[in-house]
């Protein structure tokens, strides 16, 4: 089987692998590179559990072919904590009890991070819109919306 090279940065570290052509970014991250924080919930692009950030944009890694990401910078939830200190979103998800089974959590945090990166003080509607591609079956969404709003408030307080 023909292998193709892929090379990108993942959470700031250089990664280079040979993969089967046609491998999704999700499978490359999970099976080849060993970052299992993006989850495979549907492989259809309908659940958002596999969401990652590619060059600042939210992407569904299950529908993205890894070889189209050459030269990009990829962020996943496993790379958010710096020096053991949780990202404000991670902190807020903990403090507001926004996780239950946890399977949707990494994808939710990715979607929320892209929002806060561009819109530090989002309205509730903006949070709802930002999370709208991500399915959660446990929480009923409200705790997750509250977590994102809490993280935004924490951010603006830190900035002040």
């Amino acid at each position: 089987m023909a292998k193709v090279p892929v090379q990108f940065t993942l959470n700031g570290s250089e990664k280079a692998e040979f993969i089967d052509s046609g491998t999704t970014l999700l499978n490359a991250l999970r099976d080849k590179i060993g970052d299992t924080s993006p989850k495979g919930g549907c492989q259809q692009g309908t659940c958002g559990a596999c969401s990652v950030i590619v060059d600042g944009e939210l992407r569904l890694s299950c529908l993205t072919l890894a070889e189209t990401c050459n030269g990009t910078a990829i962020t996943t939830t496993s790379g958010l904590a710096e020096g053991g200190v949780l990202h404000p979103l991670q902190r807020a998800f903990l403090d507001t009890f926004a996780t239950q089974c946890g399977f949707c959590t990494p994808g939710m945090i990715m979607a929320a991070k892209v929002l806060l990166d561009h819109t530090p003080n989002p309205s509730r509607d903006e949070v709802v819109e930002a999370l709208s591609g991500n399915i959660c079956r446990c929480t009923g969404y409200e705790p997750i919306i509250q977590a994102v709003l809490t993280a935004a408030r924490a951010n603006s307080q830190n900035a002040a």
Partner: protein
Amino acid sequence: MELRKNYFADVRKDDLHEIGQPRPRSDSPGHVTGKTAYFADRNFPGMLHLKMVRSPHHHARIRSIDTSEAERHPGVVRVLTAKDVPHNVYTILILIQIGPEDETVLADGKVRWKGEAVVAVLAETERAAQEAAAKVKVDYEVLPAVFDMEEALKPGAPLVNEYHGQNYYLYDSGECRKVRFGDVEAGFAGADHVLEQSYQSSPIEHAPTETTGCVVAPEGNDRFTCYTNTQAMFFTLDNASIILQMPGSKLHFVGGTVGGGFGGKVDVIVEPIAILGAKLTGRPVSFIYSREEEMQISSPRAAEKVVIKDGVMKDGRIVARKVTGYTDAGAYSRHSPYGAQKGAGHYPGPYTIPNVWIDTYCVYTNRTPSSAMRGFGVTIGDFALEVQMDKLARLIGMDPLEFRFINAYRDGDMKAHRQPTEGAALIECMQEASRAANWPVAEKYMAMSSYRKGA
């Protein structure tokens, strides 16, 4: 959320230290950092991927299966059919002696629902398994199918499942689980109004974000470790042991961190065939449901039909209730015989009614087998009961909430299944709801109590 400590303060001691405290969840840091290990986060070198060839027909005889082309497909390591499964006909509740064994791990001679597993393909990659699965040739003779429970119960309906011999589960009590309490016909005869209504639901999916699946690794010592998201470890291990005719000591199940269950992961569906694949190939095997399989192949909550006939007095007392419940099990039992009889134990709801008659049926049709889901045996019944309560209240011109107070069960009341009521709290819930929703009821109802004598 608000904790209303004023209710039941006289029967409760609040002297605890760790209990009642909103301690942070120990699993949450793993969730928010993506470090929590779910079964599918285990990856083993040389792992094979299992894909299932499924029936395109609702009901058909299998004339022949030709796997030769699939076996020759590049990347394919093994193709499994019914003859490879040591104990192919099983039923999961056999562990608690609810038989007969009525379901095949891989179809043998017949398929009874669209989507039934027929052939398992194990290959080096998911893609190779999918390609090979497309090359499996199954010759079917399509048979008449039945989808409607009432049709299925009629004489002459296509027989769904030969292991039962009729299209319903045969309880020791006969064609249904029965509860008989008082004289329901006398109750109807003496009632001011009689209202009979029918309620219906369709199958509902658990839709956990993590689909059903497992990863099996041979340990090299004739033992197999199965990383699974089952909701019941030993239940699954023991059923796998029966199906594989393998001593339980050879099986090691690791689980306990599951991406949502809601009752959808209590069937023993993926583990036995994946372990068999690992055993026959000596390789790790991954069998993970696709989302489409989770939606249409994994057991849903059963469709139910509930017919309720009530006799009610003008003063609001329900004097007789007859409930006939039908649970659409689909083609196989799985947990449905239990769910139907759980319903029999739940009716007539949290109300004290002197005359009760309950029949609950577990019916077989040519659809995806149903099984347990959050509220198993109760959820749809509660929908029917509580809409019926609303209709009855309006029928006699009474406030729906007050009507429920009149009939609410209280400690000591005898239930239809002949257990005295203990620990009732319906009245207090309704009192608080009356306040919270600004839905006033007469003072006498606000003065009632589930447990205080004289109140």
